[in-house]
């Protein structure tokens, strides 16, 4: 199934399982978990997805089940908590590992939000990387000036805080320079943007979105009508 999904399809996928978690009956939720597990097996990074599910999601789900079924509480209550947790978290893992940042970025362009907002969104991920690089440089620089990193963990943490101030100052200064550079890149240009590459909604995406939205709506309605 290694199909490039539009981010809107991915969002609807997450929304669908969110609705199952909150409005679905236990049997529906179990079916939802089965669908999720089969989806996890069909993505490109399936090994990583299974690793994350086995190491983080399942242990926490089991823990939730045990805690909520303890002390005479009904078995169904623990199961409901565990299923909800799995249904809320696993779709995020599948979407993150199943798509690529490029698809996401290209897809965002077709969503009718101001371009500034989606640059801000993508740039916020970039800035974390930049801050890490700056921190690394400051850290090495301070080590060369005598900062001893090989102390106890407590001391290490205590000594890290003075390094944060230069990192923040450098980040602010770089932010100002970047804002000037962005101005010449036309970020404020009133002209209608024309992109070199875009990711449009394919018929598969449109069909998937329609099915996922209708199913979500059906589940919500059914949860109110059915006893």
């Amino acid at each position, binding site marked *: 199934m290694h199909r490039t999904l539009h981010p809107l399809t991915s969002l609807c996928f997450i929304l669908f399982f969110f609705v199952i978690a909150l409005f679905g009956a236990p049997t529906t939720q179990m079916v939802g978990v089965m669908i999720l597990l089969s989806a996890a097996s069909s993505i490109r990074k399936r090994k990583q997805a299974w690793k994350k599910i086995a190491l983080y999601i399942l242990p926490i789900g089991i823990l939730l089940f045990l805690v909520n079924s303890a002390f005479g509480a009904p078995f169904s209550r623990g199961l409901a908590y565990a299923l909800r947790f799995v249904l809320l978290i696993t779709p995020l893992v599948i979407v993150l590992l199943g798509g690529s940042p490029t698809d996401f970025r290209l897809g965002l362009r077709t969503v009718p939000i101001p*371009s500034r907002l989606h640059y801000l969104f993508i740039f916020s991920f970039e800035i974390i990387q930049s801050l890490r690089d700056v921190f690394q440089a400051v850290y090495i620089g301070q080590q060369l000036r005598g900062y001893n990193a090989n102390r106890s963990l407590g001391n290490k943490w205590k000594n890290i805080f003075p390094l944060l101030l230069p990192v923040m100052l450098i980040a602010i200064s770089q932010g100002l320079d970047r804002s000037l550079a962005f101005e*010449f*890149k036309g970020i404020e240009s009133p*002209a209608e*943007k*024309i992109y*070199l590459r875009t990711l449009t909604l394919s018929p598969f995406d449109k069909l998937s979105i329609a099915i996922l939205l209708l199913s979500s709506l059906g589940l919500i309605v059914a949860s109110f009508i059915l006893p």
Partner: protein
Amino acid sequence: MITIKDLSFRYKQEARNSFEHISLHLQDGQALGVIGPSQAGKTTFAYALAGLLQKHFRGGSLTGTVIFDAQDQAPGTSEIGFVFQDASLQLSGVTETVEEEIAFSLEQFGVPRDIMRERIEEQLSTFHLIGLRYRHPKTLSGGETQMLAIASEAAKHPRLFILDEPTQALDADHVRHLIDFLRVAKRSSTIIFIEQNMSATFELCNHVLFLENGRQQFLGTPHDLLNSNIDVSSLTLPELIDVQRSLGRNHISLLFKETIEWMKKCRTSA
């Protein structure tokens, strides 16, 4: 065409002007080299030309006038190419290939897709980036990043192209490519070239503006600067010129062949 009359600027809470009383006239198709030691006010002067001081440093005091094309209206950001000192900060950070990075500003200014593709090819070939087309901008070396930053601004085909120390991260080959490109570009753009690399500046620029402590020490051709009484000890001059000065030549030449001939004559007479 740019005409600057008595331009001065002082940052907020600064005791002295960053630059003062600068007046010059630059025709289309000319390149102006802005030279001088550190803290001479070169970058601030470039900011003034690009209209950044008026917009982003409002606390400062800017006096004098800058007139473009006989109109009192600065070109828009689509018509100005500005290459900042730190090229890594110039990259958008939101693109994943060199090709997309060059396209970024064209996308913002709504350049039609076919023209955009033409310009990308043009810049990739001019700056020898074809082999790096699909590389992530973050994986490039310092020199390649600098070339990419210049290429992305050059893709706009700016009317006014300001480059702030563009050769500082470049090796000799890259400097040659850049100078070759700018010699062609100055036919259609006015170039402001802020540099410490005098060799590149003298080769490219018709005029040089020598700033020291924000003051205009000299404005004229590189040849006139070297043959004037102005103290240029704060500049790192090319060896060709240093040799002539140390041998006490009265008429300093920028031409290699001419200098070699003169040295041969000196040897013969000695």
